[in-house]
């Protein structure tokens, strides 16, 4: 429910790469790098149950592979002694786990009330238009940009607020789009 689905459900269903629990396949077996394994060990020591490390472990998976594939779900499930269906259920509840590859720049427009009052809706629509009439959640053919709409980013005093990957951008009104998009190489 709580999920700006990056890939519409209908598209997933028609996609031959979709596995039993609904996740897309990346087409190869996955395992964490040495460094990420060490990070996971440190994480597990912070919680009384393995399951509690699920959200942080999914963050590690996304850091490593950019998105959460069917193989990532299966791998994380094995690491934490959980079922893949359970892990997928958690992945789909939270909006920030990408369920398909995203562009180099994941542009996240806040369109909640304070940003709405300051022109976020127009800026968001114009941004998609300039990138070739992108649909929400779609990626440009060159793989550079994905644009999505998100809820309040707790930067309401700098409305409209935008996040690009992990970085905060402020006051991105329609007239600032040129400079904004130009700054994203």
């Amino acid at each position: 429910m709580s999920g700006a689905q990056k890939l519409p459900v209908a598209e997933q269903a028609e996609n031959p790469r979709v596995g039993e629990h609904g996740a897309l396949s990346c087409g190869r077996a996955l395992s964490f790098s040495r460094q990420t394994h060490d990070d996971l060990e440190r994480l597990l020591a912070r919680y009384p149950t393995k399951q509690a490390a699920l959200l942080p472990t999914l963050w590690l998976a996304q850091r490593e592979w950019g998105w959460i594939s069917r193989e990532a779900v299966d791998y994380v499930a094995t690491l934490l002694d959980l079922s893949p269906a359970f892990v997928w259920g958690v992945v789909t509840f939270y909006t920030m786990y990408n369920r398909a590859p995203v562009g180099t720049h994941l542009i996240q427009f806040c369109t909640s009330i304070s940003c709405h009052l300051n022109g976020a809706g127009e800026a968001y629509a114009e941004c998609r238009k300039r990138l070739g009439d992108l649909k929400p959640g779609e990626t440009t053919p060159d793989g550079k940009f994905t644009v999505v709409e998100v809820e309040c980013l707790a930067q309401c005093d700098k409305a409209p607020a935008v996040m690009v990957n992990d970085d905060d951008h402020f006051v991105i009104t329609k007239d600032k789009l040129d400079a904004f998009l130009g700054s994203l190489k």
Partner: protein
Amino acid sequence: MSGLSPIEPVLLARRGKPDSAMIQTYLADGGYASWKKVLGGAKSGEWTPAKVTDLVKASGLRGRGGAGFPCGMKWTFVPPKEKRGDKPVYLLCNADESEPGTFKDRLLMETDPHQVLEGMMLASFALDVKHAYLYIRGEMVHAAEVLNKAVAETYAKGFLGVDVLGSGLDLDITIHRGAGAYICGEETALIESLEGKRGHPRIKPPFPAVSGVWGCPTVVNNVETLCCVKHILDRGADWFKSIGRNEKNTGPKLYCVSGHVEKPGVYEAPLGVPWETLLALAGGVKGGRRLKAVIPGGASAAMLTAKEVENLPMDFDGVAAAKSMLGSAAIIVMDETTDIPKAVTNIAKFFAHESCGQCTPCREGTPWMHKMLKRIVSGEGKKTDLDLLLQIAGQMGNGMTICVFADAAIAPVLSGIPKFREEFEAYVAKSSHPDFALAAPEDLTNKVAERAAAGIH
């Protein structure tokens, strides 16, 4: 001295100082003095958990997360050692801050993380906590980095870990990142999420204080609440109580002012400042335009008209008396140019998107309300739509659901439509379904103009 006279910043005292996030500057400003004081007096019995709790109770501190629940009283709901056996007690700092219009906790964490950590430490002492978690929303990547660095500095100084400062007490703090879900700010959803599950609120009772995370007694407190605890320990309960409108609304408070104001931002003022003072701090309404409406406590709070906020004391009881709530003190200002039906539709979209889906009235009702509103503002509404909306919204709250999210979701609709009914009716009147049109558009335009002239909104 009146409790409402302007105050020197307390919670924001260190904002803007160079390297304010670093432990050296925090220590130089007298930081961790209370933590050292309390731990130093732990062995001798000079400082006991009960003494800290009593101070917090005496201060009158009410939770800053939204509900305004008395903090000290909440702490006393944790069963005593004899009753809870060997179950550990957990403290969870709620840093999910996702209520539209709220951005104070982010500021506290990014600019003064040690203040937050010291508050957590002192609360942990009061509650006999050995491991506290700070649950930060996934989008606050930078704040999480700042906090993790601060935690590492704190361990390095020996303020956390085993036998902290020779007190015989152990304490760990872990920063835990969410992953995008507004509902995880609700305390039982936060608990579920921390356990590694979908953020589904739990049915209460049992309350977290009795059975929370991992089935253990748990206290959930907001970031700002815990920062207040630090200052109460630093400067005393009487000092805290000397600030604020009355005995029930005490202490310094952070107000997040956004929307149509000249200088949006976080402002610190005594709890209960009048509306006008706050608006002046934020530079007044943008472009000198007239005020139309204010949402005083984030998207979950009922809208107030310009008239209703006049002289309103901006505290828990003051705003409640106006039939809205202070909530997270997210004050969203809307000037005369605001299209209220569109604003209400925008908020309805938020709730439709964020319902966790467990309860039918909320799961089905929130998208339905959004659809109806969208239909109205896109000129497709029917004349019966407004009353239907009010009727259905009226059936979604008041204990029909597991958590109060549904009550929050209906507040903007149940306040926005009656208070600005003409604006909604104007949309319906212009509807492309003439069969259903309510009245000739000209009549309504006149009515709106008349009411505006009479200063009704």
